């Protein structure tokens, strides 16, 4: 048996830890420090995020996030399929708010192709995007609380989310991967039943959210695990490229819905929630308050919802209705052309972003006038928020890493594309 002396024990350990399949190298010798591998299969890293931590005792000296365990190459796939065909794939990006991604994609394609959806479709899009935000924030709040040890909150927020999924079920027939939007509108009009259920949900949501909040807002363990943990200043957060609730938790008032309004957000009355502290607790409060603001927006949408068509009447760009295809020649020809050759937007490039539940979700599309994009870049908020992770965890304990990951709420499907 090979005898290991005291001198070569460290290289052996390092070699064993960072085996042949790893691409992380530790350059300087470790004296009292330890390398700890966290993830990719770790319940608190919210998916397949791998973080390699360098520890002194229990203090994190450095952290290196490793991404790519869920990389499916959606950008490559988008370059090889039509604009319509990519809609179901956007569901799989941020799988906690699939409808917001659908909206983001069709808005980008409509901007590129010069299509405008009818007002009712835009209102419904706004409604589903806000429902997606509430659903995603509920999961974020619940799993953050679970990460720091409060299990009940998770069950209660997921109960609320379940009701939203039921509304989606009535709305578009799917609970999770919805693919509800279409280029030029939405797949089918929202039924009165769905509207009634949405109204019912909004009426009972705020008291129920309040109940969840009362479980933890004054809970000493919850507060102390998050208060002052993972602090990032406004300037640093901007510099590192954070967006969404994580940025607003540092006191920067940047919300795409207000800064560069899309759909009808200009007509809506809502506040952009900011908290100046920049710690994990502030990010939690931003999410809770944003869910309340979203409920307020949905209430206004339900009041203002106009009647009318939900699909634009531009036969050369937008798929016509089925009954028209079967009964009229022109529509049949257009349908054939659209299905076989795509919508062929003019040569050009656009960047279109919406405020997703995680931050600024955008698509950069380059068209060469063909049926499929020449280039599609997904700007995913989880990716840019995760970039701040090494900065946030530096000098904190291992247990804080879990709380910090929970508070920036990354979704690996989106970060890894």
């Amino acid at each position, binding site marked *: 048996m090979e005898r290991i002396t005291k001198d070569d024990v460290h290289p052996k350990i390092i070699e064993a830890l960072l085996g042949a399949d790893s691409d992380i190298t530790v350059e300087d010798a470790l004296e009292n420090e330890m390398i700890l591998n966290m993830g990719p299969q770790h319940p608190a890293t919210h998916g397949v995020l791998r973080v390699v931590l360098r520890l002194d005792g229990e203090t994190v000296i450095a952290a290196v996030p490793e991404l790519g365990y869920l990389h499916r190459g959606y950008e490559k796939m988008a370059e090889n399929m039509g604009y319509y065909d990519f809609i179901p794939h956007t569901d799989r990006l941020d799988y906690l708010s699939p409808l917001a991604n659908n909206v983001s994609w069709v808005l980008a394609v409509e901007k590129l192709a010069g299509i405008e959806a009818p007002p009712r479709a835009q209102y419904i899009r706004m409604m589903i995007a806000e429902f997606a935000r509430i659903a995603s924030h509920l999961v974020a709040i619940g799993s953050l609380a679970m990460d720091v040890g409060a299990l009940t909150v998770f069950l209660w927020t997921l109960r609320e989310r379940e009701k939203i999924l039921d509304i989606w079920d009535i709305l578009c027939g799917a609970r999770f991967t919805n693919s509800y939007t279409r280029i030029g509108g939405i797949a089918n009009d929202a039924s009165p039943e769905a509207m009634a259920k949405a109204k019912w949900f909004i009426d009972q949501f705020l008291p129920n959210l309040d109940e969840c909040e009362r479980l933890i807002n004054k809970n000493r363990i919850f507060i102390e695990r998050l208060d002052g943990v993972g602090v990032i200043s406004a300037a640093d957060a901007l510099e590192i490229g954070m967006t969404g609730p994580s940025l607003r938790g540092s006191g920067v008032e940047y919300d795409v819905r207000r800064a560069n309004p899309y759909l009808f957000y200009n007509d809506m009355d809502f506040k952009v929630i900011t908290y100046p502290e920049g710690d994990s607790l502030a990010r939690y409060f931003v999410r809770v308050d944003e869910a309340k603001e979203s409920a307020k927006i949905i209430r206004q949408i339900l009041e203002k919802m106009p009647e009318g068509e939900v699909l634009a009447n531009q036969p050369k760009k937008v798929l016509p209705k089925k009954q028209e295809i079967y009964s009229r020649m022109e529509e049949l020809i257009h349908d054939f052309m659209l299905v076989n050759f795509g919508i062929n937007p003019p040569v050009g490039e656009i960047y279109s972003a919406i405020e997703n539940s995680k931050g600024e979700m955008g698509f950069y599309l380059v068209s060469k006038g063909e049926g499929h994009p020449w280039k599609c*870049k997904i700007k995913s908020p989880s990716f840019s928020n995760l970039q701040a992770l090494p900065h946030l965890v530096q000098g904190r304990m291992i247990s804080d890493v879990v709380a910090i990951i929970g508070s920036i709420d990354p979704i690996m499907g989106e970060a890894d594309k």
Partner: protein
Amino acid sequence: MELKETILKNLKEKFPAVNFEETEFRGELTLTFDKKFVVEVCSFLKENTELQFNMCTDVTAIDWAKRKNRFTVVYQIYSLSHKFRLRLKCNVDESDCSINSVSSVWKSANWYERETYDMYGITFNNHPDLRRMYMPEDFEYHPLRKDFPLMGIPGSLPLPKKD
């Protein structure tokens, strides 16, 4: 738009030697210029008090496949005070497949440039940590290049061997 003129006026005053080619599509302004000046132009756009492009939203590249300058590196930047998006583009040829890194200007460009390097094989000079973002480090190809097949290359990702 007033701000578009301000940007161009400021840039032309500061960099008389650089040729800024401007294009506009659907109200979005794009400036194309020589890749040699990318760091200077970016830091000027960020530091200038009139412009303040303090957010780098995204860095990516386009592979034009058969063109002379095969790649175009694209920067999406945003001015928080003006609520204005600007797109910067620099052409990169395959024979000299590198460009200076702007991660010294915006820290957020760090990961975006790593991703671009991973996907297109464009080297970013002076980058603090130029590793692959998604693919394994020993992967030989750059998946978003147009000559990489959609179905992948068999055997390019080695599976763990049995002892």
